[in-house]
């Protein structure tokens, strides 16, 4: 696999995306809104504790509940970008000239995977960073005897965000490569990605009570992601992408 070609496809996709104002708005607006909600939630939790409406023991769970919402960022952004990726090459009739270059199927797949991963996972990292920073500031300024979920909490969230981003990216790329039009690709990608997100939320709503539960759930998500990557790589063939069937 030549990384130059992978990078070239990724750069081209970034360049195209940067000119798509509607897509950019969606990709910025939802994360910004979720980040704002996260910051507001941590502020509210801090305030409720200072007012005595919430006990210090309840604080971590309340903060985590608001942080889990940020996991929507890798899910939605990676799905939106990934599902557009291949199908827009088909509808724009650029797929045939692209496949007529020496690019290999895997180089194309990984090149196509970079933008949704970067936008989904990168966006989530940024959002978590902002909310964690805001939480630390609120708690410190309120002089409360509570520590905002620190290094391990952040690490746990970033692992989840990364896994959800990878999973959403590869699912949506696979669906995009089999779809003939954008709406179908996005619809089916969300049908797969959102239940996975819901499952993660349900599994981790109990956190951070048990790191064993967390490890088991992450292991399941890692296995699922590995299966999806393998499946997508196996099915991402030029003939199928071009014709819709082998």
């Amino acid at each position, binding site marked *: 696999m030549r990384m*130059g*070609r992978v990078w*070239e*496809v990724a750069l*081209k996709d970034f*360049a*195209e995306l940067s*000119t*798509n104002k509607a897509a950019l708005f969606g990709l910025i607006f939802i994360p910004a809104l979720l980040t704002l909600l996260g910051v507001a939630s941590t502020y509210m939790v801090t305030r409720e504790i200072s007012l005595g409406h919430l006990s210090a023991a309840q604080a971590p769970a309340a903060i985590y509940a608001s942080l889990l919402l940020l996991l929507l960022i890798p899910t939605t952004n990676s799905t939106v970008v990934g599902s557009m990726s291949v199908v827009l090459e088909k509808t*724009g*009739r*650029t*797929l*045939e*000239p*692209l*496949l*007529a*270059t*020496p*690019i*290999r199927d895997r180089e194309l797949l990984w090149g196509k995977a970079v933008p949704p991963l970067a936008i989904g996972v990168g966006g989530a990292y940024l959002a978590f960073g902002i909310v964690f920073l805001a939480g630390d500031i609120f708690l410190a300024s309120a002089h409360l005897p509570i520590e905002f979920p620190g290094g391990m909490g952040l690490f746990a969230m970033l692992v989840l965000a990364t896994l959800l981003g990878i999973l959403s990216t590869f699912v949506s790329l696979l669906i995009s490569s089999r779809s003939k039009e954008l709406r179908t690709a996005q619809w089916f990608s969300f049908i797969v990605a959102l239940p996975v997100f819901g499952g993660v939320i349900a599994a981790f709503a109990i956190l951070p009570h048990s790191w064993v539960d967390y490890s088991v759930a992450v292991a399941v998500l890692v296995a699922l992601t590995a299966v999806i990557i393998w499946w997508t790589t196996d099915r991402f063939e*030029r*003939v199928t992408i*071009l*014709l819709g*069937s082998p």
Partner: protein
Amino acid sequence: MAGGIQAPYRDVIVATELTRSYRGAPPAVERLSLTIRQGEIFALLGPNGAGKTTTLRMLSALIQPTGGHVEVLGIDTRDPHRIDEIHNSLGILPEVAGLYESLTAYRNLQFFGRLHGLSDSTIYERSRDLLSSFEIWERRDEKVETFSKGMKQKVAVVRAMLHDPPCLILDEPVSGLDPEAAKTLRDFILDQRRQGKTIVLSTHNLDDADRLSDRVAILRSRLLALDTPARLKERLFDRVVAVELARPDAGAVEIARAAGAQGAQLEGRRLILDLPDAETTLPELNARLVYAGYRIVYVQPVVRTLEEVYLKLLESEGGAGG
């Protein structure tokens, strides 16, 4: 490696018994065998749905045949390890230009050039030379979405030529273009042949095929005919000659039939004759007409068009198709 295989192959593309079927449909292409030689313009003709695009896709290793095989410059397209060499040896222009509309013309060329392994300086030089030959170098930094169809087609041709492939595969290259843009592209194609490139094109424009191609293949899922345009005309039609007479009448028709003309009819002052053996029949006919007192103004061969050949072939295969 850009530029592909610069080999002394005389046969650039050899297709053997090519068949391509799609699930639940009759074969789009059936047992098609043809050889495309270096330096020729080879046209694929056929009605819609005849399998031209499928054939071009198989010849350019974009899809694999379900039966038979293709060799491009001696490489079997089924060999997945040599797909780079094949695609570097071919310049492909699909039916639709297929450019990234929101990017500039130059960014499009840069993207495809880099995928072919060209350096940025080579991409710049080749783009400048090729875009200048189409007089659009000055507009290289404009978004493709602002271009006319003809300009987009020119950029797409430049993209196909960027890595200097020995063989070009062009699907409907002048379709939908205005006469000026079509002429520019036709001249470009002829110029490429002069430079020794092999050109395979599919077209609905039979006039273009007649003017441009060295050989034509007429397809309707399977190969109906393959030859030079001139030989196809000869093969399918007798030599037709028009003899203009000063004062024609029905007697001239009788004389023509007696001299061996298979078909003879009067069209105004012209006697239109089908002469299977014109070399011997025509002098005999002229002599008889003069002897009978007719004054011959001129004798002229009636040129058959490729369109007539095409329609006759399709008709004999059961309808002209759609």
